[in-house]
């Protein structure tokens, strides 16, 4: 039973070197037979030496595949280490799908002008996804 789905850190935020980010939140447990909490954390990030963003576009609902109400945020790729051989303007799309049955996040680098450059750039920017799954017994 999903109790909460939230975004702990805003997209396009910096987590500086040797710095700690903290997010404090409350969870309501409505049913008495719940004996433990399962907390999954997903974070996608890239190195600022490979990627910086600018020009945020307002989030919009963009149905895609199995996600009918996928929320998509978009930014222009302002600078990357590969700026020397990029062509046209690249954009980064960040997808937030908060469906209780199958919540997920993802991101894409898109280059409308040059699909070939898009294929070259995305792996080198190397957006990393880290996951944590922890369980806590309630006393």
């Amino acid at each position, binding site marked *: 039973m999903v109790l909460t789905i939230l975004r702990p850190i805003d997209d396009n935020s910096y987590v500086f070197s040797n710095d700690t980010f903290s997010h404090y939140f409350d969870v309501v447990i409505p049913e008495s037979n719940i004996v433990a909490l399962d907390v999954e954390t997903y974070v996608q*990030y890239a190195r600022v030496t490979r990627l910086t963003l600018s020009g945020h576009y307002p989030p919009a609902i963009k149905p895609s595949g199995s996600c009918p109400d996928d929320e998509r945020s978009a930014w222009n790729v302002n600078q990357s280490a590969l700026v020397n051989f990029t062509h046209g303007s690249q954009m980064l799309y960040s997808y937030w799908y908060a469906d209780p049955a199958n919540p997920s996040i993802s991101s894409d680098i898109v280059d409308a002008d040059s699909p070939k450059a898009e294929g070259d750039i995305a792996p080198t920017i190397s957006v990393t996804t880290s996951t944590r799954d922890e369980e806590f017994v309630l006393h």
Partner: protein
Amino acid sequence: MTLNCVFLAFKTLPAVWGIISNGMKSLGITLALLGSAANFWFVSFYLPANTQVGVEYGLSVGPVVRSGGDRLVALDLTMDNKSSVTALTVGSMVIVRGISYTNAGKSNVTAQQREKSNRAAQQQMSAYADSLAGQQSVGGSAAVQNPNIQFDYSI
């Protein structure tokens, strides 16, 4: 090590400088400059651009507070960037699920039945231990009994 090399160079170079040919001097100076430039590029540009981000996560749960029929629990998520590179987050999500057991606290197994089941399991384990301890080596191929494992026959 570096200090030793510098000290050695300062001690020996003035003594041998006069007998080194001009060509060798030029070559040495050129190599030293190239080495310094390569080191500067490696430390200032290559390493920062290629260092992986290392983020350490922490999650702690506060005390459970009752509010009416609901329970309320506070969670604290921390992200600690342990690397020398700043990380840019492009997406994040926390999903909290409640876990419940079917018929939790409503089991039909009585304490007496549970005790009997535990005793039976213990007896089976003891019998198995006895059978292992009583095994004879056949043709030298049987496993040698581990001297670090002892069976308690008092049960």
